[in-house]
């Protein structure tokens, strides 16, 4: 993220900052003055945020974004669940597809220019298992590779390479990523440590959501449990920041009632507005595994799937409106994903089975509005084996967001996603078009291991700092396999170097993992030709 340097460099010395604070315009002498620094800090709060909405279970994308241009093939493939053409919600200036009738919220967003619909997102050789497909989407791997880290975690590891040693700090006082829910997901798993924090995690932060927390019984076990919980609530490094951020927002635009996705997004909006510098938020909404009775038998526009889509649509609409209300609309974009779409042909239980590619949504004021791609081709006589082929690799979406929203360089993109992917024009990249010199995130925290050059062709020098005692450096490939162990012995405290010669190893990403007592830190390294 180069935004901070961009702002610093763009302020000429002794210029009048065109900002008014409490009614007074402020004269800034140079960018290093304490006053300017103080002003910078609120400014840096405009850094970009990505909200990932996971729709668990495999969403039936074909009933969400309905192909009007091939309507009869669509209808014939799934007569028992198909949406009547007359009920499809139209999109302004786009007649080839429309939305499920329950998605009036997203229809408005589209018409307001705050929605991009990306058609048929998937990947080669799709997997139909919930678990494996979810892991593929979250890890950002191909379907033939098993990768144990998440794409978001790898991004955050390149952005904040020293995390968690020396965190939180003044550059990054907040969690790098926040998962609303109990469990930090694979998406936020870095090459070595998890980069995310789940804010209903009982060890960290309580009850922003109505998370289940067993009451402490009224006996001595309960007394001791309460004691530990109290310590836990006081000791989380981020609890106060998060609580203060959440509490600083006293008014929000309304959210739909009884909508758990809306409740989660409402928290996200509060935390963003409240000043957290957190980069990535993840929320989850489940129930999309609609093998049977996904529609009402007599009216296909209502039923289970319609309710799910309505909640998704209402929640996202409310969130985007709330961002506007809170004045953070230029900082936040979001994306939806589901581990797979469903089969073109419906089954006889009024549902659809596991499928392949499906559309996804990008939302927010800074997304490039419109429909990316074309309606999927649907055969005239669809068989049970027919699936929607992918037009866009899901990693192209990740790559485009990282490049255009988080200003990630090309070589770093390759480090995160292991190869190059198509760049899609899906969000405003104005902030990334200036070049910064120093990225403070890179040196925040305590740097224990680095390498140079990086990227490298044959060899690279690894520099590491040990606090003494047994010290280990392992070279690990993108699949998590240990390739070599250049350092594995006792050291006295100090800084040392070791050479890593990659020899015949293929080009790609390698991680240098330092382990020193209870400490570990990982440096990604890219081998190129």
């Amino acid at each position, binding site marked *: 993220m180069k935004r901070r340097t961009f702002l610093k460099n763009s302020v000429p010395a002794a210029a009048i900052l065109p900002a008014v604070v409490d009614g007074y315009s402020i004269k800034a002498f140079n960018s290093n003055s304490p006053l300017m620094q103080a002003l910078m800090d609120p400014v840096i709060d405009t850094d970009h945020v990505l909200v990932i909405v996971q729709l668990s279970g495999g969403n039936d994308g074909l009933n969400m974004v309905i192909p009007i241009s091939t309507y009869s093939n669509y209808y014939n493939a799934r007569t028992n669940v198909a949406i009547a053409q007359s009920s499809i919600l139209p999109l302004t200036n786009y007649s080839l597809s429309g939305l499920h009738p329950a998605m009036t919220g997203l229809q408005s967003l589209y018409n307001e220019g705050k929605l991009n619909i990306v058609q048929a997102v998937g990947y080669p050789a799709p997997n139909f298992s919930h678990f494996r497909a979810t892991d593929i989407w979250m890890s950002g791997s191909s379907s033939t590779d098993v990768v144990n880290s998440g794409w978001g975690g790898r991004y955050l590891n390149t952005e904040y390479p020293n995390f968690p040693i020396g965190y939180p700090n003044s550059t990054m006082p907040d969690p790098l990523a926040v998962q609303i829910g*109990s469990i930090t997901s694979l998406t936020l798993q870095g090459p070595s440590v998890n980069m995310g924090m789940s804010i209903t995690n009982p060890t960290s932060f309580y009850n922003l959501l109505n998370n289940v927390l*067993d009451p402490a019984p009224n006996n001595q076990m309960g007394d001791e449990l309460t004691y530990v919980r109290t310590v836990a609530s006081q000791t989380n490094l981020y609890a106060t920041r998060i609580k203060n951020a959440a509490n600083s927002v006293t008014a929000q635009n309304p959210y739909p009632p009884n909508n758990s996705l809306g409740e989660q997004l409402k928290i996200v909006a509060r935390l963003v507005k409240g000043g957290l510098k957190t980069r990535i938020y993840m929320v989850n909404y489940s129930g999309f595994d609609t093998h049977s009775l996904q529609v009402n038998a007599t009216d296909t526009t209502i039923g289970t799937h319609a309710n799910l889509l309505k909640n998704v649509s209402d929640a996202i609409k409310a969130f985007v409106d709330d961002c506007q209300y809170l004045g953070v609309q230029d900082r936040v974009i979001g994306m939806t994903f589901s581990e797979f779409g469903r089969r073109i042909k419906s089954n006889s239980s009024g549902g659809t089975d596991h499928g392949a590619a499906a559309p996804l949504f990008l939302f927010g004021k800074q997304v490039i509005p419109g429909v990316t791609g074309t309606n999927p081709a649907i055969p005239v006589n669809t068989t049970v084996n027919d699936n929607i082929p992918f037009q866009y690799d899901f990693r192209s979406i990740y790559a485009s967001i990282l490049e255009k929203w988080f200003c990630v360089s090309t070589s770093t993109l390759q480090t995160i996603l292991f190869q190059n992917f198509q760049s899609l024009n899906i969000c405003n990249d104005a902030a990334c078009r200036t070049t910064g010199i120093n990225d403070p995130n890179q040196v925040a925290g305590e740097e224990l291991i680095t390498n140079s050059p990086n990227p490298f062709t044959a060899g690279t020098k690894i520099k590491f700092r040990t606090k003494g005692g*047994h010290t280990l450096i392992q070279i690990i490939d993108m699949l998590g396999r240990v390739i070599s162990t250049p350092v594995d012995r006792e050291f006295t405290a100090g800084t040392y170097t070791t050479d890593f010669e990659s020899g015949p190893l293929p080009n790609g990403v390698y991680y240098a993992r330092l382990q020193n007592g209870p400490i570990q830190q990982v440096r990604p390294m890219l081998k190129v030709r």
Partner: protein
Amino acid sequence: MDRRDFLTARKPKTIPAQAARFRTYSGINPYSGPWTRNEVQHLLKRTLFGSRKADIDYFLTRTPDQAVDELLNPTAPLPLPPVNDYTTVDTVAPGATWINTPVSDGTLNSNRRASFKKWWVGVMLNQDRSIREKLTLFWADHFGTETDTIGNAHYIYWHHALLRQNCLGNFKQLIKNVTIDAGMLRYLNGYLNTNTAPDENYAREFQELFTLGKGPSVAYTEDDVKKAAKIFTGWRINGTTFTVFWDASKHDTTSKQFSTYYNNTIIAGRTGADGALETDDLINMVFSKDEVSKYICRSLYRWFVYYRIDAGTETNVIAPLAQIFRASNYDIKPVLAALFKSEHFFDIQNQGCHLKSPVDHVISCLREFGVVFPNDNTEYADAYGMWNYIRNWLANLNQDIGDPPNVSGWPAYYQEPQFHELWINADTLPKRNQFTDTMITNGYTRNGKKILINAVEFAKTLPNPSDPNALIDDTLAVIYRFPLSATTKQQIKEQILLSNQAQDYYWTNAWNAYIASPTDTANYNIVNGRLKLFFQYLMNLSEYQLS
């Protein structure tokens, strides 16, 4: 509890309420209730380091009496002694034990002290199905010796061996042995205590910490300390042979009269070799006070049951246990047998209320999950390296084994009113989580060897890991004492094991697919990743700190 109360509570507001709430009326009558996994687990969590599934299965086939008797009567041989695991030149070969070859060299002793502490971790990890190791740690806390004060590793090891050998024996004999033990003579300056220059250090702690304690009815005087110090004069250490001997010329041969607390007892001064017998006279006098038995029973109670002793517990438990202790002439075993077989021990009020000590947290975790260490015989250097890593964690969590903060032992066992709660604070709780996180995620790698919780292998030891509900229940039945609610278990199942799906069969299918082709990396990762998250989550909950 109201959430606001909960969040703002600095400390549980239970202490006033506690006084009003009479905890339980149960006493030491024999327990006759159910004998299920729950009760076995309770017994094992308190007497061993962790309740491994295999151990629960084993004791479930015994009666409660048989189980307690087995735990109190170890049959396994004493552990093999620590060895030379360091590279410094020593008269003993690498891999050979140094315990019979005392040296004066400072560097060697430092290496040997380190070897001893690593070895102790290994002994606890490899404990047998008996209370021996937990009780050894109890006595080490009771006598509170510090290796960095004693200095000489020879004395340290043999002091420690004395505790282990006598941990279930006779307390009066143990006190006698400890009094004239080289390690203790060094630790509390007994070897410098002579008729011309008395040193009261040991004489004071002997009464205040080792036998009578500081209970309300204890009333020995400063003069009693001085008199006791005189009695102990004459015990010396031969720095060439590293042995204890009696030096009659250094003994104060005057007669010593004690205070009214000791009924003005006069211990007649003796000369020559007989002077050593005054030590027995003193021990007999001190052990004639009921406070000794009460003090030790309270210490045992705090260690094995709960740290709060209210009036009911004092009357119904401590007093009768102390009576048993005295009646058996201070044999330890009958007291523990009565305690562990009592209705009070199994009282629901006394289950799950123990906050784990660092040793309990760390060693239990490694044992319950069956973490495999390098072979302590064929790969001893690697084993010692790993044990050292674990020892370092214990020290980070404030329980540096072999080196408690001072002669009082660890404050968690004596400091009113918080006691065990002192283990857990803003510094140590995140570190406890960091330890379990490390063990379940990356483990620790050293010299090409790795220690790590193998999540899949642990799941395989459970009766029905393909059923997510059974998997959760059976895991909790090993590692948890707090009964999680059905709602919480459902949430954990859905969010972790089912990846937000509703149907159990998704987990079942994933598990069965892995079992059918265990070498398939994708299948393995699906179950392994979710199991790791599942165990990590459970170990991060505050409930995991209860035992």
